[in-house]
């Protein structure tokens, strides 16, 4: 299936819900509203054979967080993007649809503090056990100051 055919099919099927961008060959970016995530992913899986999730990227855009789900099929890459507000970052889990998404959803919970609702196993994955609550390293307002190195006896 060529890119143009797939775009036409997607638009016929999910027309009102998605905005499609096709920046290069085999690369499709689908923009959807956050509440549409589960219905759109279900439809992509059942009608378009999109079963493989490469990863989930989070981005800090300031007032909102963008979440990009990188799917691929043997012919195209489908990147489904959605935005959630910074004050209440909540998104539905797609793990019940695609079991392989579990580690990536746990990762964005750790790194961006986005609450994934309905995740089967929401424990922290990457950060240390004694990590302070409310610290999300990949947010743009999070900075790490390296402690000043103290050399016993001073510098020679």
């Amino acid at each position, binding site marked *: 299936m060529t890119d143009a055919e797939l775009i036409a099919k997607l638009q016929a099927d999910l027309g009102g819900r998605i905005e499609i961008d096709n*920046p*290069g060959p*085999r*690369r499709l970016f689908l923009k959807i509203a956050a509440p549409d995530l589960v219905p759109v992913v279900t439809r992509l899986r059942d009608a378009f054979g999109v*079963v*493989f*999730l*490469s*990863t989930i*990227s*989070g*981005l*800090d855009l300031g007032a909102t967080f963008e979440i*990009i789900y*990188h799917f*691929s099929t*043997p*012919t195209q*890459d489908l*990147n489904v993007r959605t935005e959630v507000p910074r004050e209440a970052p909540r998104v539905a889990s797609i793990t019940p649809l*695609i*079991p*392989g*998404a*579990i*580690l*990536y959803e746990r990762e964005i919970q750790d790194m961006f503090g986005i609450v994934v609702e309905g995740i089967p196993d929401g424990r922290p*994955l*990457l*950060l*240390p056990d004694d990590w302070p609550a409310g610290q999300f*390293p*990949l947010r743009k307002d999070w900075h*790490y100051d390296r402690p000043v190195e103290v050399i016993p006896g001073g510098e020679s």
Partner: protein
Amino acid sequence: MSFNIPIGPQHPALKEPISLRMTIEGEVITDADIRLGYNHRGIEKLAEERNWIQNIYLMERICGICSHSHATCYVQAVERLMEIAPPKRGMYIRYLVSELERIHSHLLWLGVAGHEAGFDSFFMYVWRDREIVMDLLEMVSGNRVHYAINTVGGVRRDLDETQKARILDGIATLRKRSEYYLHIGANEPSFVARIAGVGLLPKEQAVALCAVGPTARASGWDRDVRKEDPYAVYDELEWQVATADTCDVLGRVVVRIKELLESYNMIEQMIKKLPAGDIAVRAPRKAKPGETVSRYEAPRGENIHYIKANGTEKPERLKVRAPTLGNYAATVFMLKKGFVADIPLIFAAIDPCICCAERVVTLVDGRSGASSLVSLSDLRRRALDRPANALVKGKAEWPF
């Protein structure tokens, strides 16, 4: 009565330190749980503070065995963002190194698989032959591990006629030996008996858990980024995707040896077709605002980088997903219903890094809570000794 065995966090059978908690009933693993982050270096955050050129070297240090994979996946994306096209000769040299790296990684893994299965002569033969490709990589790039041959816009070193001849010589030797290893790997009765049926991952589970690379291909799922998203030179070469349908460690051995043979073909084609011309073009210091997704078939599976540029000389966001992370969910599935004695083998079957130092497993007695430290080599020895110490005819005392 069930026991909990924590494996890790310092557990070098995987590339990163990782913690696996096994729940076992007798010898059977009933549940496995995973905890990551013991080697989290914050590279994605760090990359936002580095410029486009500095990031090549940062990306190269994500992984020791497939260092070229991350660097290549990154420069592919940056070249797309900067809208520059590297010259053909540069591309051929870049992907020639990619295939040489795949050969060294698969040979390394094959040796580890032999070692974990108790077939150490296989391990020594394969690792002897791995030196051939390590020497070729050193000749081409100047380094054995971090090749540092990529730059934005092409590669940093050219190939001459003597080097081309030496690569072809080395590949011819390796091909003969790999054919022999394929014969052994698929036919040697004791080796096959040890690895067949271990670490089962049926195709529907591989699909559901989004497995990648040889692990997915050994479950009969013929996905290869080089075929389905043919970047750079791969649509100009003739080759096949290697698959197996046994869904176990045996299938993963067969897939990797078949991939070795395909890589030898690709390298010969690349050397023969190597075009004349420049090896690199000059790249700008800044990239226009934009975003791109770059995919690359690393030796362990699909590697994906998402990069967003904001018009400066640094990336706004750089997201990396290495293939091993994609396979963890599948590993947990493979470990369930397996035997304790198969843990090292199942680990080794998804990821081959043994360049790390010490291997330690803590065995916790579920009833008393007492724990004892056992090195993995010791655990492996116990696994091998188990059938030897069993009460079978050979061990029974002769009555006369």
